[in-house]
């Protein structure tokens, strides 16, 4: 050790000399304020302890990755020989994210996908009406029914969707994803009621509800109740799943939406961790051992950007920070509790794409794929280049993304080395910097009283809005450059276009008529169901909602079974909990 310290001193001395004799004269020669580049040396990771900071892949603190190699890597060569399309699902995994129109429109779409071999489980997008806790016949629903996802008003709709999953694709043989947050309890109850009705034990169900309500207040915006009451519902789901559906992931925490809304890397990481800590604490406060439920926490994704070194460092820092938080703050002992399980790692984020010269977005996505491959995941190139056009992803754009990933895996062999930057002076320094910055912000939020308090006061929302505006100003002042947007955009530049064929998946006519058809379905439901039973179930829910010690999941399950609508259930809770108010800036 004495010898190493001597070397650091030697390097430091040499560095000072280099700066004085080599670097500074060059900076002066070009009349710059400072060097436009940075060279990292051993002094930048002074005191670096490999086992403490990095460790081995699959071991604490997971900086080098969750596994010695991932599942997909084990079968990469086999997949290449068989021409596997990861986007089509199969093998019990979820299929492509989607949903539109009424439940029967979506069921028919799923059946059509299955008939051409796309057999993944349902990965449901719900329309905004459902996401915000309304029924298709409410005034808030006008024009939005079945638009950005499928409309689910009642248990009947849910059952119709699952008509596509029987036999070999029975609901316990595929995984289901639900991108649902504020009404997550209702959708999970429908899923449980569905299994009960089919005689399938709940403990066999696999899937992931997004169920990350806190980030909805910071970004994305589909909240219903105030943050504190929302967290109570989260606790009820956690406890219920822990007891009855141990294979169902409890939440899919997302920094992705927060960064897309404008957050800096530090805010993305700190706010996600603060939200995660609030969810974990909810389980602990309910009297559960953290190791019983934390392994069922997942992450959707963090945000991304074009800054490749920083984004690789970010993923390493995120894994280490979460592992430390679980071990040191929550006393977890099971390594699985300490892992960030997420389907992707680094990526560019859709907000890095440009409407100007859109084919450049493919180049950008490939850089994101490279960052992913070098930060512990499949080198996924995403999004398709036509993402910002708002016209749906074309088959060509999706093909280019898929092929880029395949080229990175099979030709560039990006995925043959774990954590390839481990030990790099630059990467270890950046990783430390990001983690330290995020802990400082995290501690600040803890002092405010945690994520819920920081949302109630509007702190997180305003911080993100300000960061978004700062970014906009940097672009306008040409402090940040975006090719084709604020530079290289004169008449000498030409747009490169390719053919775009959009798969005919969503029928425009059925989307247009969804609202009317769904209203008819609702009217029929209200006529046919046992009104007395609905009233009774709703009033029990109302009574229990006022008592914070009661778990509401059994009551919500009962409401779902007697065919109370999603909005009726949400309205009862609105009455007791109140509604969250938007933050004005």
């Amino acid at each position, binding site marked *: 050790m004495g010898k190493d310290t001597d070397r650091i001193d030697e390097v430091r001395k040499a560095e000072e000399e280099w700066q004085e004799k080599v670097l500074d004269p060059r900076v002066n020669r070009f009349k710059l304020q400072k060097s436009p580049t940075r060279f990292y040396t051993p002094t930048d990771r002074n005191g670096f302890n490999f086992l403490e900071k990095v460790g081995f892949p699959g071991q604490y603190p997971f900086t080098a990755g969750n596994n010695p190699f991932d599942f997909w890597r084990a079968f990469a060569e086999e997949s290449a020989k068989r021409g596997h399309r990861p986007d089509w699902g199969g093998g019990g995994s979820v299929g492509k994210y989607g949903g539109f129109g009424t439940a029967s429109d979506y069921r028919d779409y799923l059946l059509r996908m299955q008939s051409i071999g796309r057999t993944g489980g349902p990965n449901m997008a719900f329309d*905004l009406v459902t996401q915000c806790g309304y029924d298709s016949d409410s005034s808030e629903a006008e024009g*939005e029914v079945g638009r950005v996802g499928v409309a689910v008003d009642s248990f009947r709709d849910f059952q119709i969707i699952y008509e596509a999953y029987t036999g070999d694709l029975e609901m316990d043989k595929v995984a289901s994803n639900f991108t649902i947050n504020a009404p997550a309890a209702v959708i999970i109850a429908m899923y449980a009621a569905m299994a009960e009705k089919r005689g399938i034990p709940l403990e066999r169900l696999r899937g992931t509800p997004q169920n990350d309500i806190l980030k909805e207040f910071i970004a994305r915006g589909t909240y219903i109740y105030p943050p504190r009451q929302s967290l109570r519902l989260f606790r009820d789901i956690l406890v219920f799943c822990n007891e009855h559906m141990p294979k169902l992931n409890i939440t899919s925490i997302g920094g992705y939406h927060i960064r897309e809304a404008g957050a800096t890397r530090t805010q993305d990481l700190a706010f996600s961790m603060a939200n995660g800590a609030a969810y974990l604490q909810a389980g602990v406060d309910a009297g559960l051992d953290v190791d019983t439920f934390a392994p069922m926490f997942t992450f959707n994704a963090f945000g991304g950007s074009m800054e490749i070194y920083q984004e690789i460092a970010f993923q390493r820092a995120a894994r280490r920070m979460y592992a430390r938080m679980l071990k040191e703050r929550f006393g977890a002992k099971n390594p699985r509790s300490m892992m960030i399980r997420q389907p992707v790692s680094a990526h560019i984020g859709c907000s890095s794409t440009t409407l100007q010269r859109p084919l450049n977005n493919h180049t950008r996505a490939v850089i994101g794929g490279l960052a992913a491959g070098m930060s512990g995941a499949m080198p996924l190139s995403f999004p398709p280049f036509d993402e910002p056009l708002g016209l749906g992803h074309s088959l060509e754009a999706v093909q280019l993304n898929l092929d880029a990933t395949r080229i990175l895996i099979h030709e560039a062999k990006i995925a043959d080395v774990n954590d390839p930057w481990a030990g790099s002076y630059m990467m270890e320094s950046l990783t430390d910097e990001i983690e330290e910055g995020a802990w400082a912000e995290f501690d600040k939020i803890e002092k405010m009283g945690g994520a819920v308090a920081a949302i109630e006061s509007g702190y997180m929302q305003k911080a993100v809005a300000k960061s*978004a505006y700062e970014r906009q100003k940097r672009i306008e002042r040409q402090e940040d450059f*975006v090719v084709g947007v604020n530079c290289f955009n004169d008449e000498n530049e030409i747009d490169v276009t390719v053919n775009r064929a959009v798969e005919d998946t969503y029928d425009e006519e059925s989307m247009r008529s969804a609202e009317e058809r769904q209203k008819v379905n609702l009217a029929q439901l209200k006529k046919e169901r046992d009104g007395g039973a609905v009233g009774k179930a709703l009033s029990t829910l109302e009574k229990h909602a006022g008592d914070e010690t009661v778990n509401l999941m059994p009551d919500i399950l009962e409401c779902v079974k007697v065919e109370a609508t999603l909005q009726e259930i949400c309205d009862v809770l609105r009455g007791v909990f109140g509604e969250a108010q938007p933050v004005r800036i």
Partner: protein
Amino acid sequence: MSEERKIRVLVAKPGLDGHERGARVVAYGLRDEGFEVVYTGLRQTPDQIAVAALQEDVDVVGLSILSGAHVSLSRKVIERLKDQGADDILLVVGGVIPEKDIPTLKEIGVGAVFTSGTSIPMIAEYIRSEIRSDGGG
């Protein structure tokens, strides 16, 4: 010398869409450009927007729409403004708007459409030129 009245802008998010980044950035930006800006927050109905526009006595309403419902929502806001006799208010739209829809939006009375990559000074300049040439301000 009395100061010229500041141009007043209502930035509004119609419908249930929660993508708020653009609306917030434009609100901050136009404020820095010297406009009086009111931001409605999320989930406003066309009725609420028209009422707010009148109450706040604005010269301009800016709708931020990323849900794909831009044509129907813009049409409704324009109708509600007309109902209130406030069709002199300039309506501009921003968000994810496919190019093919821009002529339709202009036909129904949208003054300008600002898509991704627009700078705040461009929006400000457009608003100033429209309001001033109308004899407003």
